[in-house]
């Protein structure tokens, strides 16, 4: 990939596990400073696509091209991390530096400083010595975002960052992600099944479903007919004080 603004490019990609095909003929690209939301029903292949973006899953056909030296900062679903050991928030965020250290090297003062910076950046520097497992959902999410930030990423990839959060935590987490995109100019990819979250924060949306994969601007993709076809129930998209609302079941907005 040349030095233009494309960070990741999918060209006619097929994804699956063994003989099972999950997604076919996917083509799209992610450019620098993009904010892409990936949505779709449960089991539609969002995680499969995410794993391919992360480079964990190789395509069964087609090509995924990445800009040279592009660093991905990954924020997994926080529920997948359930440590028995009392790792402090500092310990957890420091793990984000391990990939830069290489074999045999131990973290240095520089790495510790980067961790402090990242903690301050997501406003949890006061939680540095707290046990990660004792944090609230919103605090854990911030710690995992800080861990992704210390990798000094070109792309921040978040998997269901607001899943299971209360309204206040959800809103503050989304505002933080918006800030990282807008002010820090980070390219962001966010997977979510919460359409309203995605609709009101991202620039572009990818609808994931085998034989029905679409990518485009929010207004183009998030239409009643598109979503009704995707979810198999009548869906209405409306506006409330400038925010998009998505309602299922044929109700008026």
């Amino acid at each position, binding site marked *: 990939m040349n030095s233009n603004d494309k960070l990741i490019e999918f060209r006619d990609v097929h994804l699956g596990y063994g003989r099972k095909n999950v997604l076919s003929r996917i083509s799209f690209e992610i450019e620098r400073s993009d904010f892409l939301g990936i949505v779709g029903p449960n089991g539609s292949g969002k995680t499969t696509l995410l794993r391919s973006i*992360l*480079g*964990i899953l190789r395509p069964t056909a087609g090509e995924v091209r990445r800009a040279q030296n592009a660093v*991905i900062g*990954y924020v*997994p679903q926080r529920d*997948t*991390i359930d*440590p*028995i*050991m*009392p*790792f*402090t928030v500092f*310990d*957890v965020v420091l*793990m*984000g530096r*391990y*990939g830069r*250290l290489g*074999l*045999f090297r*131990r*973290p240095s003062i520089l790495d510790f400083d980067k961790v402090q910076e990242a903690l301050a950046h997501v406003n949890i520097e006061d939680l540095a010595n707290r*046990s990660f497992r004792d944090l609230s959902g919103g605090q854990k999410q911030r710690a995992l975002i800080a*861990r992704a930030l210390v*990798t000094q990423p070109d792309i921040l990839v978040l998997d269901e960052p607001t899943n299971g959060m209360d309204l206040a935590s959800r809103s503050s987490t989304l505002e933080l992600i918006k800030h990282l995109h807008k002010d820090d100019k980070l390219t962001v990819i966010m997977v979510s099944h919460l359409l309203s979250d995605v609709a009101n924060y991202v620039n572009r949306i990818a609808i994931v479903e085998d034989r029905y994969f679409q990518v485009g601007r929010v207004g183009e993709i998030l239409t009643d007919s598109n979503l009704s076809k995707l979810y198999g129930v009548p869906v209405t998209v409306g506006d409330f004080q400038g925010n998009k609302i998505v309602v299922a079941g044929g109700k008026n907005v």
Partner: protein
Amino acid sequence: MSDIEILRTIVTQFPFALIGSVFAGLLCGYLSVYVVSKRVVFVGATLTQVAVTGIAVAHLLFPHESTDVVSLALTLFAVVILAQLLRSHDISRDSVLGVSYVVAIALRILVIQKSPASEVSEIEAILKGDLLFITQHQLSLLIATAAVLLFIHLLFQKEFIFVSFDSETATTQGFKAGRWEMLFYATIGIAISVATRIVGDVFVFGFLVIPAVTATLLARKVRSIFWLSTLVGALPPIIGLYLAFKLDLPAGPTAVATASAMLAVSWIIKRFK
């Protein structure tokens, strides 16, 4: 026999048993932190059974070969299969561990059934966990194994910790999680294979669980848990040997019972603190 006489007898007549059981406890105690935190306690149980099966297979099929080598080879083979199964999503983790545990026990019983009576008594001695007759060769092998394995663990501590904590994110940062997992399980397999031959399966399985559980009850930092777990691994074998002498009990199970008592006390301290 007075307490002083018991201690003097242990130190003067059974020094290999004393030092060997301490080293086995120390090694298993350290590794138990990973075994417990990765939620793979049954891997320890399974591999101890595989190691015993390996000893029985060696007696039955390769009477002229070293039982250590055959047991180690079989355990490492089981490690490769287990690590693959645990990483694949075809069978649930619980099922993989449960099935491999019961298969290992069944194999052990079948192989022992077909072994000559003279060999069965040696295998039964291992199962009983009588530490007293550790030889100088076994002690040297155990100390060398513990030194190499602990060195590997200290050298690659950040890799083992990251992959254990969040293998998916570690993979996105360029860590070959599968290879690190394989190396981790190989170190566990080697430790189990060597230690089981010397101190018995009950001792090894017990000390791959109890020290870490005790340490997590008492310590608040991960680093302290590693230290405390290693210490909790090293201490009960000494008390166990003393009690085994005093009460005429097999030393291995007595050491495990002592460690369990320490765990119970730790739980009470934690509960009422």
